[in-house]
């Protein structure tokens, strides 16, 4: 399985990244050589193997629902690139058209 320029553009869109033509040209063979190496796993028959998603297969960890203090509003907004009073400020979300 080899990625074309079009595939890479699609993945970039999903990942919310963009690349210049120069970056694309450099990345294409790099991504493909890694993927080609990863195809090695298809050699293995894993039909009857349960996937392992985590080294510690914990059952759910619950805690009592007790009201307690968390971080303050001021702390939460401390690293905000832009704020408006007690809100994070971002570009307009809903357009007019």
């Amino acid at each position, binding site marked *: 399985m080899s990625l074309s320029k079009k595939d890479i553009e699609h993945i970039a869109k999903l990942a919310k*990244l*963009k690349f210049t033509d120069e970056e694309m040209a450099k990345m294409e063979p790099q991504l493909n050589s890694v993927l080609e*190496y990863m195809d090695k796993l298809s050699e293995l028959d894993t039909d009857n*193997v349960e996937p392992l998603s985590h*080294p510690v297969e*914990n059952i759910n960890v619950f805690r009592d629902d007790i009201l307690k203090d968390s971080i303050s509003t001021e702390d939460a907004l401390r*690293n905000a690139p832009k704020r408006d009073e007690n809100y994070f400020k971002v570009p*307009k979300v809903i357009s007019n058209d």
Partner: protein
Amino acid sequence: MLPYKDLKEKQELIRNGQLSLKENIQSFLKKIDQQSDLNAFNFVFADSIELADAIEKKIINGSAGKLAGMVIAVKDVIAIKNKPLTCSSRILEGFISIYNATVVQKLIEEDALIIGKTNCDEFAMGGSNENSAFGPVLNPLNKKHVPGGSSGGSAAAVAAHLCDAAIGTDTGGSIRQPASYCGILGLKPTYGRVSRYGLTAYASSFDSIGPMAKNVYDLAILLEVMSGYDEMDSTSINKPIDSFHTKFRSHVKFRIGIAKEHFDKGLSIEVNENIQRVIAQLKNDGHEIIEVEFPHAEYSIATYYILAMAEASANLSRFDGARYGHRSDDGIDLDAMYTNSRSEGFGEEVKRRIMLGTYALSTGYYDAYYKKAQKVRRLIQNDFNKVFEKVDLVLTPTSPTTAFEIGAMIDDPLQMYLMDIYTTPANLAGIPGVSLPIGNDSKGLPIGLQFMSDRLGELKLLQITNLLGEQ
């Protein structure tokens, strides 16, 4: 060199009035400044000196914590309240932590002093410390060579005596490999042994925080303090913690497993020769060497990178320019704000991993990559379970080579990934591993040896490290 061999001796010198903690910190700060070309630190905390008198007093009157007077550097992926946290990335430029990571809180409560935050590969992604917005770290033993990564700044700082010990993180070898390249000790604990609260997530089912030091006493006491259950990390392990620092001196004879898969092509002749010498010595000392098998060893790297990249692509989606971190000026709408902020903020390797991880999780490819890799992860863990029925420890090289030259692999990411052949299996299985120096190659660069044990077997790792260090 430092005027003491370990923390115990340091505390004795302070207690007897033969060492001033304040002068000790001053001398570290001076060395950090003199050796700033190493680029080991992203941030240096000169204010650490303010605590020196109070801690010195505690040491003298006997009320001090376990780590009293230990001067520690912390990898810049871990939160320290009111200090910068950048993960060596442009995307976190200017970010200030609003709380302490659990592990940092534990160090402070035991009276350690944090002297600064160390450079690393961006978001801990890399094995050479060349992927950093702060620039590469140099290996203090040969400045043309890398210190390893991703905890390269931590390893270099310890090796160059810029601090007593350091904290690193290990997702696929990022403590053990730089420890090996810089000739120090580095231990990756069992997954869940140390709380990850306050660690910036890279690959959550692999990330482990661990100690890096120059002697087993410091390594053991640090691990003991760092370990433990934390309600803020639901994957942390709720089991009693051994008194590692009083128990690591022992003359137990171990059953040590060796697999021919780990001594195959790709391993440097010099590294192999040195390891064979140690194996012969272990036999001579009465340990039992047993041949074991890892039938899926050759699939570790592919499995690890698929899963780690998939987890990374999900974890790093939080960097969107909205609530913290870099925001592009060039964003007319919300989508452009996300895309431009991320594209400007992340470096090349991080973007590559996000791209591959996104692909591995995308519709139509999930089963072929992500799910397949999770299945192979199970097979690799089963291999370890079987092997640890027969042996106490598994011995492997830490890395196929010694520290390579800066720039040698920068345009060949796959080649760089292949260097993680011996370290990634422990992360896949969630077991602990330690790297210890066993000699130098003909260029004078250190050679590292790795021991792994079953889950929660850290004491055995400390004991064998101590036994080899005694000779």
